[in-house]
């Protein structure tokens, strides 16, 4: 595995956000530097006061909802707390949504532009969910 893993999470579907969070947490606690970039339909779930759960894509989502699967927000927080991952909101998506830094979920490390994200990711792997 590369020392740098950059995760771009753009889907608003539960299974995809869950897989992004699982990957971020597991890689981060295994010594990989992880940067998560939340954009498009994924970002609204990381805005303060957003309580609607993401829709399920298919059968796995329904099954996960009935089992004790760690919530994706908890996994992203563990990626950060236990593995030093950084979580960023896409500055473009923030502009489209009309939200400022103060409205981002407390676990986020603030806005990040695509240019900077790609620059940081250049020497590692990028995964898109």
């Amino acid at each position, binding site marked *: 595995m590369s020392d740098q893993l950059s995760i771009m999470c753009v889907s608003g579907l539960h299974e995809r956000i869950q897989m992004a969070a699982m990957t971020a*947490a*597991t890689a981060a606690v295994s010594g990989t530097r992880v940067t998560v970039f939340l954009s498009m339909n994924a970002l609204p779930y990381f805005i303060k006061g957003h309580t609607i759960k993401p829709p399920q894509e298919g059968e796995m989502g329904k099954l996960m909802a009935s089992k*004790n*699967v*760690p919530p994706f927000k908890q996994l992203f927080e*563990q990626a950060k707390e*236990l593995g030093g991952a950084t979580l960023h909101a896409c500055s473009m998506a923030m502009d489209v949504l009309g939200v400022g830094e103060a409205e981002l979920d407390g676990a986020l490390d603030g806005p990040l532009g695509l240019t900077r994200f790609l620059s940081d990711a250049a020497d590692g792997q990028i995964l898109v969910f």
Partner: protein
Amino acid sequence: MNEENVTVVDARGSFCPGPLMELIAHLKDINVGDTLELLSSDKGSAADVPEWVDKVGHEMVSNEERDGIWHIRVRKTK
């Protein structure tokens, strides 16, 4: 083994990567040389946790299944 220095972490019922995260969170709280026993009902974690232990350099003490529960013992080495 000195049983007094075994901390049990009960992650039964949690799915991947929940048991691994529980293990790591508790490893931070024990002393080097002490052992942690993770209880997990998740078969995937029984394979995944030893992979993590090997990768980061702690020591696998044992990994046994008893009645559908994996008892995974890890010694903190650093």
